[in-house]
């Protein structure tokens, strides 16, 4: 049985002023026990998709099921199966970590004794035992995220929805959370996470879907998506705008990316001399050139026509400076 089965879901918000199609057409399937990533920029429709799948938002059109349960007609049963840590789900800052876990355990129906036991287990799991009696307002951003993750695990859900779990965290805290997410996956929990970080999607997701403007524009494993581009990515930089413009006429298949040209070919490193020759013949001076294996960043550029804000750019391996 599929963990998550989403078929052509759509979400339209209608107000007096405007109609917004937040999710136009999203479909994907998630197998049990895998981490599935939804990658996309802000406003792409990732969080809206998660809100619909977690039964917090109605679906305008389409259908979806969680472990075979329809999320519209079986929403109560669905909530039993899922854990949710959304971007805007709050944590009560005036309570201690221990009190929050205990309260949440009681709300899930555990007895007082079982709640105490489960509280200690979860504090240990997310590494907050020492901070258990401190009020949450004294926690760092990373600790709050771990607490949030822990709270979503109280009832041992089969499926966990994490909406941008590491946004705003420093690299160290991010890595700690990644390890915890992987450990959960290894323990059999299916995880659906949204992210706008390419590195995170690459590191965590067994499979991922790239969402842009409410549509799934690519789907597969990270390697499949990179392979779909075909070959290596060669990046050319030029002395001036004029050379860049002229080079576009020589390298017809190249994509302009800021002040660079990028072209994807088989055996990229071997073909660099021939490209440079062609450009030189046309009086174009190449200031630097590099060949690299495609990254998710390249995939994103290929399928959307633009880069994710703050993305790292191409892998610097095989880079060849030409002077």
């Amino acid at each position, binding site marked *: 049985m599929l963990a998550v089965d989403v078929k052509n879901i759509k979400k339209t*918000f209608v107000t007096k002023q405007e109609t917004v199609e937040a999710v136009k057409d999203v479909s994907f399937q998630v197998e049990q026990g895998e981490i599935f990533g939804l990658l996309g920029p802000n406003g792409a429709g990732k969080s809206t998709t998660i809100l619909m799948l*977690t*039964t*917090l*938002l*109605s679906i305008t059109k389409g259908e979806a099921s969680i472990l075979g349960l329809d999320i519209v007609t079986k929403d*109560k049963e669905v*909530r*039993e199966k*899922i854990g*949710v840590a*959304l971007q*805007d*789900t*709050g*944590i*009560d*800052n*005036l*309570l201690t970590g221990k*009190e929050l876990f205990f*309260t*949440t355990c*009681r*709300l*899930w*129906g*555990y*007895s007082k004794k*079982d709640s105490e*036991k*489960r509280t200690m287990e979860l504090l240990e799991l997310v590494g907050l035992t020492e901070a258990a009696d401190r*009020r949450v307002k004294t926690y760092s951003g990373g600790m709050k995220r771990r607490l949030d993750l822990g*709270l979503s695990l109280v009832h041992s859900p089969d499926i966990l929805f994490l909406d941008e779990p590491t946004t705003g965290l420093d690299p160290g805290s991010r890595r700690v959370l990644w390890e915890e997410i992987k450990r959960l996956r290894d323990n059999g929990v299916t995880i659906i996470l949204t992210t706008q970080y390419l590195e995170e999607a690459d590191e965590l997701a067994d499979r991922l879907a790239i969402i842009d403007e409410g549509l799934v524009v690519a789907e597969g494993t990270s390697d499949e998506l990179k392979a779909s581009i075909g070959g290596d990515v060669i990046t050319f930089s030029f002395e001036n705008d004029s050379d860049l413009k002229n080079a576009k006429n020589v390298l017809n298949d190249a994509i302009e990316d800021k002040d660079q040209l990028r072209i994807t070919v088989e055996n990229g490193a071997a073909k660099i001399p021939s490209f440079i020759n062609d450009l030189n013949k046309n009086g174009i001076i190449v200031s630097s050139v590099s060949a690299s294996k495609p990254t998710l960043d390249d995939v994103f550029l290929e399928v959307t026509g633009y880069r994710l804000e703050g993305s790292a750019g191409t892998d610097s391996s095989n880079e060849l400076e030409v002077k």
Partner: protein
Amino acid sequence: MESNRSFFVQLQVLTKRMVLRVVRRPLAELPNLIISAFFLFVYDGALGGVFGGTASGTPFDFANGNFINFILPVSIVSASLSGAASGIYLVEDIESGVFKRYQSMPISRWAIILAPMNVGALRVLLQAGLILLIGKLIGADPVVGNVGFFIVLSLAFIWGMGFAGYSVAAGVKSGSSQGAQAATFLFFPAIFLAPTFVPREQLKGWLETAAAYNPTTYVIEGMRSVMVQGWELDILFRGFLAATSFAVITLTLAVISARKATEKA
């Protein structure tokens, strides 16, 4: 591990959580708690000289020589406004995203809505109880005996639940804690469009008319009857009727608005 999701356990857990929140920010709560007690002293100090013991035997002796008995209900009624904190507590949860977390869990919607109202009611009881205690210490002495304090407290509780319901409705509608707070100020004038400082017979013109249509009038008169007059059952009945009607109307509004708030967009 066994699982028992009783509505009452959920309500109790959520209420306890909210009580902890209230207790842990005393600077935000204490001023409200003592302000009505402060006004009791002010009213007694400023007006007690005119309408109190020295007015005994004159037409200004509204309180049979004990002005504190006469003015205590005004402080109690204004303390009941603190039930309005319920709406603010609920909206704080909406603003912080805690409300959404609870929505994603199989928790009774009613428990989520009733918990802040419980805390609002507890707050009214605490505040009114404190004022009654101070009143007792400075000479309040219901003519029907100490049971009068219980009757006053019961009326305050029902009246406070009314404000709790109103503030929840206003808070959910406005979507902000400031909105919930601002909406409750609408009721502040109601305290003064009533026989606050003198009996209703002494009010003239438009104020007399306004007081006749103001439910606060009947609540104050109900409390005052057991403090000053004795067992005047018709006055007491009107007081409970006004408070209960107000509570039923506002709780209905709260339920309607809360239902809309918990519906999926």
